[in-house]
């Protein structure tokens, strides 16, 4: 069932219609097979790019769609309900454009953004390292100034689109100061010494490539430094505020698909001479699933509207990510329950949804880290 959406404009309605058509015809039919083969649908993402979906939330003057976050996130939700890994690609790409868009100089924006938002290129955001996950400030990769350029060395980890991306936002240490020593570089994928490693073999979201990137003395011109030296952590975290809302929307779309599948199954499946949907034990399960999804959607939209009006929204984004991804985990688990044994087989998509939901509680800040962000915010008030 299509979700009934309250959208702010006619354009937004038409955009959602276009996205639904793309999701129905180009995403949904291929998701299961690509997940099985762990194959990234690069051409499908390019198709979305050509439709204008890779720059929706950025200003039109740089080639973006000029859409409010409120609309962009609903686009992500629609995509995710057909194919989570593709929605993630759009979300990570959008995240990868943020440092230049928000912290770049006018010159950097003019020279980099049109291509990044144009739809043909795919970006990556590379903060994590093997020994530096939740404690992002402990990262070890280095960037040394050398004349008119910087030389990057070290190993980044868990890079979504690693090996596939056309450019990387790489966070490296330019001094030993834990928080103030990190800087952001926009590195083209074909830079000498940038060496993507074999993709990780994952439990879910297998069609989204995740890989380590070895930086073997990668030389980049100094105009590839985004913001000032030492701004890196601030840039990384503020990009993640928006990224977390993206993950919230994706988790909501995924949960919606699980609910839709569970409802359809419960109406079909007969036991004890009646539809299982008519057992209160099952319908209450479905009711709780639906309630969680509705609240998750309302949560990310409320945070998005704060962002769209220029209010601070970091804590709300953390709450939304925490709630939406925990909801997706619960809803997808319950969807398998509604399907019974059938749900545990690969014949039906719900076991895949469950595997896909799990990682959403982990990346872009684990849900423990979201609580930490929310807790710190509460203590900083008054």
């Amino acid at each position: 069932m299509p979700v009934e959406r309250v959208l702010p404009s006619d354009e937004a309605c038409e955009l959602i219609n276009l996205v639904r058509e793309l999701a129905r015809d180009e995403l949904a039919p291929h998701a299961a097979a690509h997940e099985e083969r762990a194959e990234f649908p690069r051409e499908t993402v390019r198709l979305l790019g050509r439709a204008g979906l890779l720059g929706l939330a950025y200003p039109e003057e740089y080639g973006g769609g000029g859409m409010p976050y409120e609309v962009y996130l609903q686009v992500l939700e629609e995509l995710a309900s057909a194919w989570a890994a593709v929605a993630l690609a759009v979300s990570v790409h959008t995240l990868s454009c943020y440092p230049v868009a928000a912290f770049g100089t006018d010159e950097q924006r003019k020279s980099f953004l049109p291509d990044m938002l144009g739809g043909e290129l795919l970006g990556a955001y590379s903060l994590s390292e093997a020994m530096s996950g939740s404690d992002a400030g402990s990262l070890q990769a280095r960037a040394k100034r050398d004349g008119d350029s910087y030389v990057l060395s070290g190993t980044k980890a868990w890079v979504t689109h690693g090996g596939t991306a056309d450019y990387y936002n790489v966070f490296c240490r330019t001094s030993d100061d834990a928080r103030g020593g990190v800087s952001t570089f926009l590195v083209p994928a074909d830079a000498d010494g940038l060496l993507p490693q074999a993709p990780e073999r994952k439990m879910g979201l297998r069609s989204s490539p995740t890989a380590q990137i070895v930086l073997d003395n990668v030389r980049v011109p100094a105009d590839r430094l985004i913001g000032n030296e030492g701004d890196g952590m601030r840039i990384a975290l503020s990009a993640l505020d928006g990224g977390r809302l993206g993950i919230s929307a994706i988790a909501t779309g995924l949960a919606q698909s699980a609910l839709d599948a569970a409802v359809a199954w419960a109406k079909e499946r007969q036991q004890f001479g009646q539809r299982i949907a008519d057992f209160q034990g099952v319908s209450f399960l479905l009711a709780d699933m639906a309630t969680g999804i509705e609240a998750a959607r309302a949560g990310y939209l409320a945070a998005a509207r704060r962002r769209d009006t220029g209010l601070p929204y970091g804590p709300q984004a953390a709450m939304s990510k925490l709630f939406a991804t925990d909801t997706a985990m619960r809803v997808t688990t319950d969807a398998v329950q509604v399907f019974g044994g059938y749900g545990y087989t690969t014949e039906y998509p719900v076991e895949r949804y469950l595997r896909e939901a799990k990682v959403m509680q982990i990346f872009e800040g684990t849900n423990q880290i979201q609580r930490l962000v929310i807790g710190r915010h509460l203590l900083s008030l008054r």
Partner: protein
Amino acid sequence: MNIVVCVKQVPDTYEEKKLSDADKTLDRESVEGVMNELDEYAVEEALRLKEAHGGEVTILTMGPEKAVETIRKALSMGADSAVHVVDPALHGSDALATSYALAKALGTIEHDLVILGVESTDARMSVIPAMLAERTGAAQLSFARKVEVDGSTVKIERQTDTGYDVVEAQTPAIVSVVEKINEPRYPSFKGIMAAKKKPLTTLTLADAGIEASNVGLSGSGTSVAEFAARPPKQAGTIVKDEGDGGVKLAEFLASQKII
């Protein structure tokens, strides 16, 4: 090369279609309308020809107010302008009457080529291209799976049961296309925004010089006398193969007068 693409809004192929009890015409209000699928290929082909040879692409649609959604989709794919023939008196027009109205409307648009799908998914008669050619005196190039334009010469590969024929004509010509011809593009978000600013002309009967007596239910040469819902699906017959499966299958097919 200026091209007109005839585009029809049809009920969504994913939905169940109904005839209205009152006048036995297709109920277009209660279902979602979409662009007739083959017309998407026609629009795509026109856009490709325009990209290769220049000129303008105009969308021509006859249909109720609601059909403007479909016109907008064609514009968001990249067509330059549109003409919408809309008048309550057109309601119930059959193929003959429709081709008359479309031919009149075509007369208001300067063009070299008309492209349309070979049929619409609601009526499936596949006669409009031929009727339009007859009415306008333009050459008819039907069932095209490939179109090439060289100056005023239009050459197509006409799809046949066994292969294809090469057919050539001078403009003005009317080309109907099959789905083999191309892969229609999706509109882009920017295309959607741009479509809102493109010229859309609305024509009433009088504007297009259409005689009311030749269109609508009363002006149509054909009418629906009676209709009934399709009977519900019967349970199938299961033939168990005990060495004689082939014979049993053949007997069944013979009993249904299929072989």
